[in-house]
């Protein structure tokens, strides 16, 4: 089960981070004549019924699916045939390609957010645990406050500071800012706990008596103890902030059209025209749900395993 999850997560990461390679088309490429098409039928059997190389039928002719048809592209079919694995939207854009590009941007936003939250959380937690005193109590009160505030309201408050229209960079910066405000408290509290207990240990006193500096103590003796904890926290933060990115774009507060976003794809599910002209759209939406579920589920499982192995 764990191995299966790991493989799925790695596959998803590769697929999304190399979206331009795996997507047959660019996310914004429009095929005006081909709007609202159902998925292209890819056939694996010849007319005689024998299994063969997959092909696509267009204008009564058969076009084989090509591997590496162009530089840096994995899949494609020659014109005038099209390869719309999930069909097209109302502008004739390939939904499969948009799904991959949307995944790439949510993944990027989630990774940056997790990184920022971990860096701030580690710094704050280490300072609080190592120095103690007023710094410690101030950090802890602060983290309690941010833990108890509702995340979506916090998100909207940060959003209110920005202009109404934000571009790709602005939208990702928004997710990162949300992580900087709401993501750091939990890692900070855990890191603080480790530092608090570590700094009282005899080996720290011995190292200090031998002339070790604070920086040396932290990097050599305490950091190895929190490394695993930081990884686990990062794994939990990643899906959380991917979901934040999807929520923001869903509410229309993130990046708008034309670039593909998962939130935007989910929003279009609520339009009557989509219900009418694209009945299969629920599939793409569910796939987004499945990917988000996998990331979160794997992170939860990982966290529980870590707890089980460290506590015994």
């Amino acid at each position: 089960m764990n191995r299966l999850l790991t493989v799925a997560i790695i596959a998803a990461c590769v697929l999304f981070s190399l979206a331009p390679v795996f997507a047959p088309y660019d996310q914004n490429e429009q095929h005006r004549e081909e709007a609202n098409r159902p998925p292209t039928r890819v056939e694996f059997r010849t007319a005689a019924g024998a299994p063969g190389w997959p092909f696509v039928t267009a204008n009564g002719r058969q076009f084989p699916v090509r591997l590496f048809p162009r530089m840096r592209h994995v899949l494609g079919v020659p014109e005038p045939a099209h390869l719309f694995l999930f069909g097209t939207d109302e502008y004739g854009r390939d939904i499969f390609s948009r799904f991959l590009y949307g995944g790439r941007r949510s993944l990027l936003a989630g990774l940056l957010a997790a990184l920022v939250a971990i860096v701030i959380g580690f710094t704050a937690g280490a300072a609080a645990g190592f120095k103690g005193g007023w710094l410690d109590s101030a950090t802890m009160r602060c983290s309690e406050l941010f833990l108890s505030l509702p995340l979506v309201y916090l998100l909207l408050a940060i959003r209110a500071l920005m202009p109404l229209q934000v571009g790709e960079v602005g939208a990702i910066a928004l997710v990162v800012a949300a992580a900087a405000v709401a993501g750091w408290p939990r890692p900070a509290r855990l890191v603080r706990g480790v530092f608090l207990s570590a700094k009282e240990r005899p080996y720290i006193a011995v190292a200090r008596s031998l002339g070790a500096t604070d920086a040396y103590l932290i990097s050599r003796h305490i950091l190895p103890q929190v490394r695993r904890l930081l990884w686990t926290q990062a794994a939990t933060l990643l899906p959380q902030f991917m979901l934040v990115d999807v929520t923001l774009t869903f509410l229309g507060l993130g990046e708008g059209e034309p670039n593909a976003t998962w939130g935007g794809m989910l929003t279009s599910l609520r339009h009557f025209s989509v219900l009418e002209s694209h009945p299969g759209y629920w599939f793409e939406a569910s796939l987004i749900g499945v990917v988000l579920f996998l990331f979160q589920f794997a992170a939860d499982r990982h966290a529980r395993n870590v707890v089980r192995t460290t506590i015994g």
Partner: protein
Amino acid sequence: MLARGLYRVFQSAGLLLLISSLWFLALSLAPGDYFDEARLNPSTSAETIAKLRDTYGLSQPLPIRYGRWLRSLAHGDLGESIAYNQPVSKLLAPRIRNTLLLTGTALTLSWTLALALGVWAAAGRNRLADQALRGISGVLLATPELVVATLLVYWAATTGRLPAGGMMGEHGGGFRELAIHLALPAIVLTAMAFPVLFRHVRLAVSESLHEPFIRAAVALGISPARLWWQYILPAAANPLLSLFGLSLATLLSSSLVVEVIFGWPGLGPLFLESLFARDTYLLLAAVVLSSLFLLAGNLCADFLLLWNDPRIRKAG
């Protein structure tokens, strides 16, 4: 105990002031205001817009605006909505009622379920059910509710089994209409809140089950009913009462998104709308009110904690 209670009330009031001030600052520093869009309209002259901004006090410096807003807030006046041209309190009243109806239903449902199932799972009579419940809560915890809710709306719209949004039927309200409109959003919210609550209930009860004083009570031959109601559950209640406040925060936060998805006419959609329109006073009022709910919930949890635990009472 009274002193401690008063201290908590004052602390909450201070926090409320802090939150609203931060929001006021954020909104004032943000680029643009409500009349930005009017400026694009060639038939509205610059003088008209300037006059309008004067009327709504938007042209005054920040400290003065903030002072005036605080003073009217102290008098119970939440200001006027620029977009709706109505007093904010009039706009918010029905929205608050609807949000409370939805979150209240979800809160009751999720806590009832979590308490019943958590105690049952912790009692450990049925290993299989315990495993199954833990599995289900693990799956629910990882499920992105935004996607599930959207798919539910799609399902409702295509099959027509349940209304896809809103709160009233064609012929207005009535209990039945309200119930079927409430069903989907309330189920989604309950499913979001349940797994966390279930895990905590199960953990707290199973921890208190293994306390030495429980074994002593069993050895003394105390009846099972008394054992549960007077020994095990009160001992497990402390962390759960603190959790109550936190669960309110998450519920309020997720209710905003769920309301938008299901078109439930609560605070959520209004909040979003006023954010888009830069309808400052409406937005601020919504922030203050939702913070008020949150603080009131936390305050309730604190008082329940004081009531439940004599140790905290004495220490305070």
